[in-house]
């Protein structure tokens, strides 16, 4: 328990101390929101899909969480490069607690970013259907954060250098993001694409947030919740296993 807490606390301290990272983490989603939201809004409307900002906002929140989370998980590579990793490797505590504390810390900061992005979307015309459902939506953010922190940690445990980070970003995170239905509705996409997207856990996260924030879900919020939680547990297990096998 204390292991989980101290690992969580470390993530908090590092995140809130790093002002440039805080600002940088918000820049990208903001750019996507404004450029795509205003740029494609009229096309979206003309296609009879309604208000694009409403559709896009949950996707952009999801984007800020997945990018922040994977980046955070992969910071294990930084720990390895700068040596701190060894301090945790020789600590007489269970590997799963170390990984869980880290994941929880990363998920908390990711959900925090998600909430800030949500607040920003309110200024560009997004309004959730029910304020009461914002709280479970934050829970979904936390869950997406847990899942992708674990994915990032797995990547960080498997790769020892920054090239590995680029690999994960370009071949895992970007495809997951584009296939998640964050930017466009998957319903209109070719069948093959829709089929692949069924294996994208982020798609369920975005779906759950749309369900809670704009009242439109394809799979059902509880189903999304179940998938996210199950996949998060699997990746946490994998990350712990990979971490226990690290040799320096």
């Amino acid at each position: 328990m204390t292991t989980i807490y101290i690992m969580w606390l470390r993530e908090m301290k590092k995140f809130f101390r790093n002002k440039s990272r805080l600002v940088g983490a918000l820049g990208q989603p903001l750019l996507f929101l404004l450029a795509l939201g205003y740029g494609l809004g009229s096309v979206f409307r003309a296609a009879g899909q309604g208000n694009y900002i409403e559709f896009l906002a949950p996707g952009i929140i999801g984007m800020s969480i997945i990018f922040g989370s994977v980046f955070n998980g992969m910071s294990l590579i930084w720990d390895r490069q700068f040596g701190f990793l060894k301090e945790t490797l020789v600590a007489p505590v269970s590997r799963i607690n170390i990984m869980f504390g880290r994941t929880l810390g990363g998920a908390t900061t990711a959900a925090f970013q998600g909430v800030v992005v949500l607040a920003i979307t309110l200024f560009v015309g997004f309004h959730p259907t029910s304020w009461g459902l914002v709280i479970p939506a934050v829970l979904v953010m936390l869950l997406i954060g847990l899942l992708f922190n674990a994915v990032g940690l797995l990547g960080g445990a498997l790769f020892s250098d920054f090239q590995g980070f680029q690999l994960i970003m370009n071949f895992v995170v970007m495809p997951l993001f584009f296939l998640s239905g964050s930017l466009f509705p998957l319903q209109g996409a070719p069948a093959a694409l829709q089929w692949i997207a069924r294996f994208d856990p982020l798609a369920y996260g975005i779906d759950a947030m749309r369900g809670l924030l704009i009242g439109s879900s394809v799979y059902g919020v509880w189903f999304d919740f179940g998938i996210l939680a199950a996949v998060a547990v699997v990746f946490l297990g994998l990350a712990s296993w990979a971490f226990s096998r690290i040799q320096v």
Partner: protein
Amino acid sequence: MAESIIEVQNLIKTFGEVEAVKDISFSVERGERFAFLGPNGAGKSTTIKMLTTLLSPTAGTLRIDGHDPVADPAAVRKSFGIVFQDPSLDDDLTAWENMEFHGVLYGMPTATRRSRIEELLRFVELDDRKNSLVKEFSGGMKRRLEIARGLLHHPKIIFLDEPTLGLDPQTRNHMWQYLEKLNSDEGVTVFFTTHYMDEADRVAERIAVIDHGKIIATGSGAQLKQQTGTHSLEEAFLALTGREIREESAQNRMQAVHRARSR
């Protein structure tokens, strides 16, 4: 007490085709001050990594305080503290937070933890900088903090891999005085590597010299000098290991071999 706290039998470690540690056996008595000497790339750090659960051996048996680092890493991890050769602090945390983090991970009760952190920070003369971020520290200050951290949880064994590298003579003396006191008062076993031969001669009760992955001599400083017919440990060391200059660590050598192959 004659019981061995560290026991190494026929230990082998290979990285690909490079044999970093070639069938070494030695033991360290409880409460002993033991120096592990050798030129760069001789296999010192690789051996320490295997003793401290960071690397698994290719073959051989290890016992640390009666436990096997491969089969029961948790028990082994509880028994030692370590000061690594390269930095292992979190630069984005303060000195105090680095200590606190360590104390919590090692399950120290809050009150003991706080008072001991105070005491150790005072000892390494960092108490006035305890709330500064480690990234603002000089190399020597970081080293001192790592030494304090390695001792925080009252380990039975303290591993020090070139702990005095980059320290001024004042700090070095101060540090050894403290470690010797800890050793005589609390019976902490001290296992260290160093390139300063005078330091090894002065501090260590027993010395093992490793070269090219093999232990080539063991004994007290006096015994090694006598064995080689020399007057200082430095001369004895050179007589044992030759004067040829070595490069890189065994692990780097292995990576270089891999790189050369993949080209």
